[in-house]
């Protein structure tokens, strides 16, 4: 059964805890970084519970390492499941990546090789986690800065195939698509067009840092014009999908992020209205 969650959300950050409690700003839902709340107690869990009373939430992890080759960390999965039970998120997501091997964690979202062996590996691992958590996982495409000579297909073919094989749903990060398209020289529209619409449950928008010949996914700037354009293309292609803005650094006042979120809302609505008129 698919839990319905609609509209436009933000990532919950500590700087904004008080704003969400005191002002109940108009944000349809919040995404929380799972690892920030895998702690024994104190302020983080207090604010999480308090804000959960007023806002629907989704959980977003950064260290599952679904593409890793170590066995899953049983303690981590147990804690993740306890957090799921605690806040009852509409869904849980993590990244289509690996984060380390041989029991180490590089605390980064490292790209998979786009091979048939990797597809089989991920499908089996997704099944294992989804069985344990008792619910589907959404997989997010990451920004990448390298490609592997062993790649047998494009990233978009790989992701579409994974969704088909494993039945997992997708968190489509439009900024990451753009970042990788510049870094690897592909057309980001081709990537978006290859996404299986029925599997895309959530969209991320974020800012990045432009270094000229390459882009780094920093989440510390407003969404760029190029990413807005790609978002409009995405909405034209996929229809309305729950969308949020991720800001992890250089965090502005909440009002500023809400203004940016309202721009996303307007753009999505205008894009769909224009599509209907043209039909």
């Amino acid at each position, binding site marked *: 059964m698919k839990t319905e969650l609609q509209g436009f959300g933000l990532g919950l950050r500590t700087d904004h805890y008080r704003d969400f409690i005191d002002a109940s700003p108009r944000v349809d839902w919040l995404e929380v970084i799972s690892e920030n709340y895998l*702690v*024994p107690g104190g302020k983080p869990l207090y604010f999480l519970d308090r804000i959960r009373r007023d806002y629907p939430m989704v959980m977003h992890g950064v260290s599952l390492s679904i593409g890793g080759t170590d066995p899953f960390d049983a303690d981590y999965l147990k804690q993740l499941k306890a957090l799921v039970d605690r806040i009852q998120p509409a869904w849980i997501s993590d990244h289509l990546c690996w984060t380390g091997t041989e029991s*180490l964690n590089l*605390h980064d979202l490292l790209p998979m*090789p786009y091979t048939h062996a990797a597809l089989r*590996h991920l499908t089996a691992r997704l099944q294992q986690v989804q069985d344990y958590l008792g619910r589907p996982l959404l997989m997010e495409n990451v920004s990448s800065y390298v490609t592997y000579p062993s790649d047998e297909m494009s990233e978009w073919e790989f992701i579409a195939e994974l969704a088909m094989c494993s039945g997992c749903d997708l968190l489509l990060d439009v900024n990451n698509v753009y970042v990788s398209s510049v870094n690897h020289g592909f057309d980001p529209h081709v990537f978006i067009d290859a996404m299986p619409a029925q599997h895309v449950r959530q969209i991320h928008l974020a800012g990045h840092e432009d270094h000229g010949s390459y882009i780094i996914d920093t989440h510390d700037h407003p969404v760029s014009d190029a990413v807005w354009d790609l978002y409009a293309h995405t909405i034209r292609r996929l229809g309305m999908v729950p969308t949020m803005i991720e800001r992890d650094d250089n965090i502005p006042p909440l009002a500023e992020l809400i203004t940016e979120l309202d721009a996303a809302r307007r753009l999505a609505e205008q894009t769909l209205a224009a599509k209907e008129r043209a039909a």
Partner: protein
Amino acid sequence: MNAIPELQHQFQDAVLAGTLVPVLATGHFEIYVNAYRGRLAEALRDNYPVLYRAMGDHAFSQLACSYVAEHPSRFRSIRWFGDDLTAFAEAHPDLLPHPALADLARMDWALRGAFDAADSDTLSAADVATIAVEKWPGQCFVLQAAVRLITLQWNVEPIWQALNQDENAATDAPQALQHSLLVWRREFECHWRSLDAREATALLVIADGGTFAEVCESLDEDANPAQTAAMYLRQWIEHGLLEKIL
């Protein structure tokens, strides 16, 4: 050969070694190499905020780089990274401009641990009043999960306090003074205070699961151990250090 484990092994080794151009991938591999060091150093700054202020950017970065090089993270969450920084710094005095900085690190880490330690009930004076007189000698108490009792070699608390309030605060040189520091959390606020040796010894007895009689025994040099133990107990209850009676 299983290609995925081998690829990940090589990738990780190259990141850890700081190899900028590995043969297994094409593109800007250096972004991963730099991001790894930057991210873990940032985690150390977050976990040791006052130590960072006291050392300044340059000296702290040198300490952080050396620590990261020798302590790859085994944590799922980066929040726990840096658990061994104090011992590492003490073992590398060349990275520590002053030995008292290790005590600032201890204090930072203890407060960081108290911040998100497990929530506990708080024992009240009314709860203690229910203890029957004959049960007092054998009575045990449980400390709250957030309580930390650490030993410091220097009187770094004034420095910690000044730098915590103002990163540019002028501070006096610390004096050598072995003592205990108590860290705890009340509701969601972390607190600390230094303890004299007697109170620290008595509190350690409680922490180790000792009885009230054993607390009194630990105060045998005191003129009236039972009275002093009762006074400490009252104070610990007032400060919310105790979770329950056993």
